[in-house]
C-alpha cells in the first residue's frame, strides 16, 4: 500500500520543459515512478526524454485515462495558476515543490482544493517517496542515493523539514529499520497536508506500523498530532523529535512556518503536548532510531 504514491500512480509533471522540471522528472522515473505525461502551455506534441507533453493538465488526463498525481515545477509566482489548473482537472494529489509561494496564493489553492475534494502537498516540499515504489518531487536527489538511503519496511516518516525527511529515513534504515513512505509536508506555515493529515493516512495504511516525526517550532501541526493520539483516532506508536529548542521568539528560522509568535508554537509546548498524549519525544535526534526500535518492540 504505502501512502500518497505507489508503483501504480500515474504522474504528470507540470513545467516539464523547464530546467528543473526536466531534471526532476528524470530522477522520478529513474526511481521507478510512472511519469506518464508532462505539461507546459504551448508545447503540446513535444516530448521530454520520451514523456509526451500536453498544453493542459486536462488534456494529459484525457490522453492517459486519468491521473493520480501532479508535481509542479514552476517558479513560485506561477505556482498558484498551475495548481488551480491541476485541481480543476480533478487530479487527486497536487505536489507544490516551489519555495517562497506567497501565502495568500496558497490559501486560494486550499480553497479550490477543498471545493473539489482533492489534496495538495506543500508548498516548499521535497515531496514524498514510497520505498521502492515511487517518488513525487525530489527526495533523495539522485535515484541511486534514494535507493541506498531508504530501505523498505514498516515505519512511516513525516517531517516539516526536507533535509530532515531524508535524514530521518537514512538513520532509521541504517539502524536496520525499514520504511513504508516518507513525506515532507513542506516548510511553510500553511500547507495542504500537514503532519496530522499525514499521520492519519499512516494510521490507515496497512503497511505502516509506527510513525516517526520530525517537528519544528511554530504553528500547530505537532499539537494537532497530539490531539489525534489523545482522542484515539491514531493508535499506532508515534516517535518524534522537535527542532528549535534554541530558537528565539518572533524570529523566522528559514522555514516560513518556523516562528514562535505570541507564545504559540513553542518547543516546550509541542514536546509537552505530544508526551502528554502518549508519544515518545527524544531529546537528541540521534536517539530516534533506538526509540523507534523500542516502539516496534525490538
Amino acid at each position, binding site marked *: 500500500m504505502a501512502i500518497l504514491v505507489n508503483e501504480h500512480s500515474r504522474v504528470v509533471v507540470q513545467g516539464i520543459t523547464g530546467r528543473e522540471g526536466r531534471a526532476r522528472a528524470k530522477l522520478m522515473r529513474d526511481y521507478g515512478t510512472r511519469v506518464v505525461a508532462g505539461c507546459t502551455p504551448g508545447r503540446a506534441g513535444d516530448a521530454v526524454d520520451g514523456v509526451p507533453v500536453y498544453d493542459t493538465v486536462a488534456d494529459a488526463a484525457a490522453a492517459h485515462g486519468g491521473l493520480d498525481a501532479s508535481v509542479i515545477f514552476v517558479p513560485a509566482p506561477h505556482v498558484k495558476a498551475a495548481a488551480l489548473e491541476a485541481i480543476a482537472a480533478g487530479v487527486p494529489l497536487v505536489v507544490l515543490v516551489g519555495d517562497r509561494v506567497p501565502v495568500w496564493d496558497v490559501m486560494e489553492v486550499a480553497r479550490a482544493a477543498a471545493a473539489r475534494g482533492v489534496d495538495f502537498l506543500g508548498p516548499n516540499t521535497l515531496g514524498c517517496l514510497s520505498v521502492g515504489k515511487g517518488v513525487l518531487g525530489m527526495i533523495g536527489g539522485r535515484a541511486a542515493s534514494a535507493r541506498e538511503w531508504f530501505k523498505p519496511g514498516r515505519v512511516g516518516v513525516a517531517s516539516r523539514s526536507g*533535509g*530532515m525527511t531524508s535524514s530521518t529515513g537514512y538513520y532509521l534504515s541504517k539502524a536496520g529499520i525499514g520504511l513504508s513512505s516518507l513525506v515532507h509536508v513542506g516548510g511553510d506555515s500553511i500547507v495542504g497536508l500537514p503532519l496530522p493529515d499525514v499521520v492519519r493516512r499512516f494510521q490507515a495504511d496497512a503497511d505502516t506500523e509506527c510513525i516517526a516525526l520530525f517537528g519544528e517550532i511554530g504553528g500547530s501541526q505537532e499539537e494537532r498530532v497530539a490531539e489525534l493520539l489523545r482522542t484515539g483516532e491514531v493508535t499506532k506508536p508515534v516517535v518524534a523529535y522537535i527542532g528549535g529548542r*534554541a530558537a528565539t521568539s518572533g524570529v523566522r528560522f528559514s522555514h516560513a512556518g518556523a516562528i514562535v509568535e505570541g507564545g504559540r508554537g513553542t518547543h516546550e509546548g509541542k514536546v509537552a503536548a505530544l508526551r502528554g498524549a502518549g508519544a515518545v519525544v527524544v531529546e537528541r535526534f540521534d536517539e530516534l532510531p533506538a526509540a523507534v526500535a523500542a516502539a516496534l518492540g525490538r
Partner: protein
Amino acid sequence: MARLAESHGKQLLAAAGIAVPRGGVARSADEARSLAAGLGGAVVVKAQAQTTSRAGQGLIAFADDAAGAAALATGLLGRTVANFPITEVLVEERLAFVAERYAGLILDDRRRCPVLLVASRGGSGLEEIAREHPESVAELPVDVVDGVTAGAAAELWARVGVAAAEAARLGETCARLWQVARSVEARSAEINPIAVRADGSPVALDCRITVDDAAVFRHADLGIDVARELGHPPTALERIAWEVERDDYRGTFYFLQMRDGFDRGERVVAFHGAGGGGSMMAMDALQRAGFSVANFCDTSGNPPASKVYRAARVLLSQPGVDGYFGSGSGVASQEQFHSARGLVKAFLEEPLAVPAVVRLGGNGEEKAIEILQGFTKGLSVPVECYGKDTPVDACAARFAELVAAHRPAPTDAPRRTPAPAARPYAFRSPTGEITYDHAVCARCASKACVAACVPQILKVSDDGLPVLAVTPEEAARGRCTECLACEVDCRALGAGGGHVALAVPGLDEYRRGRGLE
C-alpha cells in the same frame, strides 16, 4: 523588513478610511518638539521598536506640551531595546476615549484561511485577553476570495457584547482592515487598541502589520528593503547578507544575527546551517554542548560555491566568535562539494583563526570532506569535516574539544587579492570575475583546474594553458556555475594561477569599521 513600522501601518489604515491620530515620526528631540507644537495640546510619544508591551517598558509616554515631548524624545532616542537602539519616535495627539477594543486579521494554519478576531477588551495582548476574559473574544473564519463584510463583522462585535450602533461602526472598520490586509498580503494585521471616542467613532491607536516575506516582490510600493522576519530592524551585516541573496536565485542564503558585542571566550560561535530543520537541529546540539550562536545561517537549495563563500565571509565578519560550526540535516540531496569549495576559499582568504567543524553529509560527501579538510591544512587552526554517519551531537562534542584546546594567536592579514597577474587571462562569471595568470599556469604540471571544473567549460590550449572552451559570453551567462574549482583546486593541486574575484558589496567597509581589516 516585512513587519511594517507603526507609522507606516497607520498610513495604510488611513488610506483605507480608518481614522488614526494626527502625528508624525521624529528622529530628534527638536523634531519631536516641532511636531508636538504643530499638533497643539497633549501628545503621546512612542518609541518605534519591535517589541511587545511597550507601555510596560516605558517606551510610550505622555507629554502636555512641546517641551515635554522633546524631553521624552531625548530620553527615548538612543535607548536600547533588545540590543537595538531606538532611532525614531512617533509623536501623536493624545485622544480621550471611552473604550478600547481589539481587531485582528490573522492567517490560520489549521483552517488554511484568514480569520478575523475581535475582542471587546483591547490594549493588552490578545492571548492575555483570551485567557482572562474568553467571553470577550470572538473569531470568524473568512473566505479568502469573498473577504470580510461590514455586516458579518458587526455581528461578531455584537457577539462580544458591543452595542448595535458601535458594532456597526467597528464592523465597517473590520471590512476596511480586511482590504488593507488583502492588498498588502499581510500575514497578520492587527489594530490594538481601537479607541472608541465619546461620539462613538473608532480610532486606531496602534497597529501591527506583517507582510508575507514571499509576497514582498509584488509590493515594491511598500519600500520593504529586507524581506526577512528578523524580530528586529535589520543590522548592517544583515543588510549586506540580504544584498548577496536578493538577486541571486541560485539556492537560498538566509542570515540573521542573534548576538552582537560579545568577546572571545564567551563560547559564542559562527553558525553555518543548511536547510531550516537541519539548521535548527544543529543549533540545538550546539546549545547542548554549551555554546550559543552569534547568528543563524542557512545555505541550501543547491546554492553555488560562490554563494556559500559569500555567506562564510559574512559569518567570519563577526568579531569575538570562538569557532565556526556548520551542519545541516546531514543527509543533503545537494552535492556537498560545492559548499566545501566555498568554505575553503573563505577560510584561506580570511585566514580562519578559530577552530572549525563542518558536517557536510549527503550526496558527494566523500569529495566534500577531502576538499574541505585536505585543502585547509596550511591554516594554523584545525578544520574538521564530517559526513552523514557522524551525528550532529558528536560533531558538537568534537567542536567543544577543539575550542577548549585552542590558544588564540595573532591573526594574519587577509589574503584576498593575489599579486597582479604577469600574463592575465580573464573572463566574467555570473557574479564575479575569473583571472588566470598564464605566467604561473605555464609552470603548472597538473592543470587541476581543467579536470576539476564542474561544468567542464575549460580546456588546455595548444600552448598548454587553461582557457575557456565556451565563449566568454556563455560563461558569463551561466555556463560558468561558479564552482570555484579553478581557484580552490588550483591552489591545492596546481601552481596557484587561478583566482576568482567575488565581491560582497559593503562588507570590506563593515569589516574596517569593526576592526577586522
